[in-house]
C-alpha cells in the first residue's frame, strides 16, 4: 500500500505490477483494457471493480438474448 493508491506485487516474481494493455476475449470478440501486469511473467491482476463493472457490462452486451 502506498498512500491511498494501492501498488501490487506479483506473488511469484515479487515484481511491482505495471499498467499494461491486455486483450480480453469473450464469445469470439476481443476488447482491450489496461490492467496491472507483472513485467516479468506477464500475469495480470483483475481488480474487483473492473470484473464486476465494465467486464460484466461487456459480457452482458455480447451475450445473446
Amino acid at each position, binding site marked *: 500500500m502506498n498512500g491511498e493508491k494501492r501498488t501490487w506485487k506479483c506473488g511469484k516474481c515479487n515484481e511491482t505490477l505495471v499498467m499494461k494493455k491486455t486483450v480480453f476475449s469473450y464469445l469470439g*470478440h476481443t*476488447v*482491450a483494457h489496461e490492467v496491472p501486469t507483472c513485467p516479468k511473467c506477464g500475469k495480470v491482476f483483475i481488480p474487483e471493480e473492473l470484473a464486476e463493472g*465494465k467486464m460484466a457490462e461487456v459480457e452482458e452486451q455480447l451475450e445473446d438474448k
Partner: protein
Amino acid sequence: MTVSSHKESANTSSVCPVCLKRLPAAVVRRGLTYFLEKECSDHGRFSTVVWRGENPRLEDWGNYMPPDEPAEEQPDCPSGCGLCAGHLQKTCCVVVEVTQRCDLKCGYCFAQSGDGSTDPSVAQLSASFRALVENGNTFVQLSGGEPTVRNDLPEIVAAARDAGCENIQLNSNGVRLGKDRGFVKALAEAGLSFVFMQFDGLDDRIYESLRGRPLKAEKLAAIDACAAELLGVTLVPTIVPGVNDQHIGAILDFALSKSPAVRGVHFQPVSYFGRYPQPPRDSKRVTLPEVLSAIEEQTSGKIRIADLVPSGCDHPRCGFHGDFVILPDSILPLTSKTGSSCCQAEDSHLKNRNFVARRWKRTTTACEESCCGEDYTEMDTFLARIKSHGFTITAMAFQDAYTLDIERLRRCSLHVFDNGNLIPFCARYLTPSQG
C-alpha cells in the same frame, strides 16, 4: 389422397380457415417447399406454404422439440385462450390496445378499426397497467388501431410509467408523429421508451399499394421527430411479394444510415387476417428463409444469414434476430459468434425483454455521434459504442387461419391483454376466412 411427399416434422394441430374448428395438421415437404396441411370434414382440404428453400433448411432452424405428451393432454388451443397451464412460454411483451380508431385504411393489418366509442379511459388503462405490473409484466406495447389518434396518449404513457412499466413501446404508423412535434415531445416527457413504426419501404408506390396513399415523406418526418426527442425508432416493414420483397436491402441500408436514431428493422412477412373470399395464393406469401436470403442478397452480403439466428423466446419458426453494433465504417455482427440460444430456457422471456429494451432504447452516452478514429477494440469505447449504436435485425412471422400451427402458438411470448386475460398474439387476431 395420394401425394408424393415426405413428411418432415411431427404432426401438429391447426384450425379450419373457414370455421376455425381445431384440426390435426402436418408440415409436409414437397421438393424444397414445406406446406402446412389439414382437412376439415365440412370445408375440405387446405395446404399453405410455410417454408420455401433450404437456406436455411427447416430441419436446421432452431432446436425446439415439442413436449412429449398424449394428444388428450394438449390444451384446446386456440379456443378458450387466455394462457393456460399448457402454454409453453411466459409473457415477454404485452400488447395493450388503446383505441380501435385509425387514420389509415390499410389492406394489410391485423388490428381492427372502429369509431372510438369503445376507447378505454385513461383510468381503465391505468388499472390494466397496474394489474400487468403486479404480475411482473413490465413491458407494454401501446397498440390499436393507431394509438396516436388519441390526444391523451401522453397521459396513457404516464399512467403506464406510474404503474411501474419499465418499457413502454408505441406501435404507430408515424403519420401524426411526423407532423406534430409537440405531441412527440409530450410522449417522450411522459416516459415513452421507444417507437415501433410501420415502414414498408422508401418508394411511395409501396405505400399506395399497402396503405392506400403515399406516406414516405411522413415516415421520414416521423423518424426525425423521434430523433429530436431521443426516442429510438425500430422500423417495421410488412413484406408482401411483388410489392416490397425486392426492397429489403434498401430498407436495411436506409435504417443503418439512420443509426443511432433508428435502432433496428423488424420484418413481418405478410399474414392474411380478415375477410378473404378465396384463400390467399401461396405466391402471395413470403416465408422466413426467403426473407433471410433476401437480406443477404440485397445487402450484397453486408448482413449474412449466418448473422441471424432463430427466435429463442418464441418458436424458432416464428422469427429470427440478429444483434449488431454499427461502427463508423463497418457493421459488427454480434449474434453469430455467441453460438448460444436460450430456446426453451426458463427465463428466455426475461432475457428477450431485457435484450430488446437495451437495444431499442436510445442512450445519451458521449458516443452518440460518429467517432471516426476511435479504437473500438478498447473496452471503454466499445462499451459506449454498443450502447449508442446497437442495432437489431429481427422478424416475426405472424400466423393466420391458414398457417396457424398450434405448436408454434404454444411457444408465443407476445400476448395481448384482453379483459384481464393474456392471449397469444396470433390467437387474439385469428379470423376466419369470411372475416
